[in-house]
């Protein structure tokens, strides 16, 4: 019998080791962020991680500022924890991100740690990041892209002309774990997403040795229409359900 549902977030990340590479889903909003999986990694305390994510995150220090700034538009929930927590706690040694710095004059946890020389930063154009992850999922080791040719993002990379256009050789990003967020799952690990929460979550599913999905709900096999499934369960190894009421990040769940 295939049953990928795991009983707790701590159990879902129990085999994670120091030095692991993590793809962390989401884009920038709270509804697509795998907050409880991130919190479980923070509790586990694994170190020397490489994280790959769209944004470096705000952590706990800037959480209140973010919530205040967004208040005219959205009410942020109490249980929004992003990858910035892992950076703040000194668990990350390298960050591969497209948003490293905050827009404005505040400094993200990553900006502080990078300035102190504690974290290495690789700034990657968002589309190149998505394609490097997709390539890993699809078993493509590298590809050429026109984006970035002649600029700082192409430094140290092979450049070749195709159809008169300079293109940059980009390597796939394969990870040990992909931590993603979805709406519904079944026990095969098939996933559907709500609205714009699909974003990097669906792209990252399957690009790691172990993909773990944090979901709102588990449904019976067959309840998800085959034609509507966005991520097939073959890409997913573990599924965990979010708690029904918010929990502090440091409380096991």
């Amino acid at each position, binding site marked *: 019998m295939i049953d990928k549902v795991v009983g707790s977030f701590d159990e879902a990340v129990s085999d994670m080791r120091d030095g692991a590479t993590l793809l962390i889903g989401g884009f920038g909003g709270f509804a697509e962020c795998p907050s409880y999986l991130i919190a479980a990694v923070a509790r586990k305390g694994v170190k020397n991680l490489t994280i790959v994510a*769209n944004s470096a995150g705000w952590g706990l220090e800037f959480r209140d500022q973010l919530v205040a700034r967004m208040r005219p*538009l959205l009410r942020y929930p109490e249980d929004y924890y992003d990858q910035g927590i892992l950076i703040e706690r000194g668990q990350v040694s390298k960050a591969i991100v497209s948003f490293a710095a905050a827009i404005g004059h505040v400094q993200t946890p990553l900006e502080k740690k990078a300035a102190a020389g504690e974290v290495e930063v690789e700034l990657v154009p968002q589309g190149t990041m998505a394609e490097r992850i997709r390539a890993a999922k699809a078993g493509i080791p590298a590809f050429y892209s026109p984006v970035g040719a002649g600029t700082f993002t192409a430094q140290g990379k092979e450049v070749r002309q195709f159809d008169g256009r300079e293109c940059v050789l980009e390597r796939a990003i394969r990870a040990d774990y992909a931590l993603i967020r979805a709406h519904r799952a079944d026990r095969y690990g098939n996933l559907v997403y709500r609205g714009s929460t699909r*974003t990097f979550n669906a792209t990252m599913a399957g690009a790691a040795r172990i993909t773990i999905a944090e979901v709102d709900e588990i449904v019976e096999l067959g309840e998800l229409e085959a034609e509507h499934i966005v991520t097939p369960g073959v890409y997913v190894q573990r599924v965990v359900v979010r708690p029904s009421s918010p929990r502090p990040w440091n409380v096991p769940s």
Partner: protein
Amino acid sequence: MARSRLDERAIAFRVAKEFSDGMVINLGIGIPTLCANFIPLGREILFHSENGVIGFGEIIENPNLADPTLINAGSQPVLRRPGMAIVDQAESFAVIRGGHLDLAVLGAFQVSEQGDLANTVMPGKSIGSIGGAQDLAFCAKRVIVAMTHVDRDGRPKIVRRCTSPVTAPRCVNLIVTDIAVIAVSGEGLTLLEYAPGWSVEEIQALTEPHLRTSPTLREIELL
């Protein structure tokens, strides 16, 4: 006549006049986002955002009505519209990289005489944020920059050569600022329009490279 600068909404209004019916358009964070509020009457536009939404509506400025699972690339909640489509991140950038995007409207720290765009590393910071800007600037069919003409310290943002890291070389087609509309071509910069009350000489004094004057030079129309 009193000399005034266009506010952010007026800049967005002027940019939106460039939107033609049926275009697929990506709006960057900041002033560009406001353009969605000024689509000329009778034109149907599909707005694309990097996180994978194509054809969304206006920003919802009321947290009681907002749906956190439908946001644009600036994490602002937007309206669902009939005909809207949602894809994942890789597909979203296939739209951009594959040349399916008619126009990108982006903010900038600097734009050079040749149309080089710098909008990655904020002045005074050592690391930057690139987001989707590089993919957009390299691959959209047309790029419009919407920005203030000078920085906080009054220094020109339209420069001979960018001193800030270049996001994409020779990519900008049109610059719309709070005092001018300037076309960029292989031959340099051409002043097309000026804000009410501004002379060519006054705009030139706040612009590093030489501005040629369009034979059809006129005041920016804000209606």
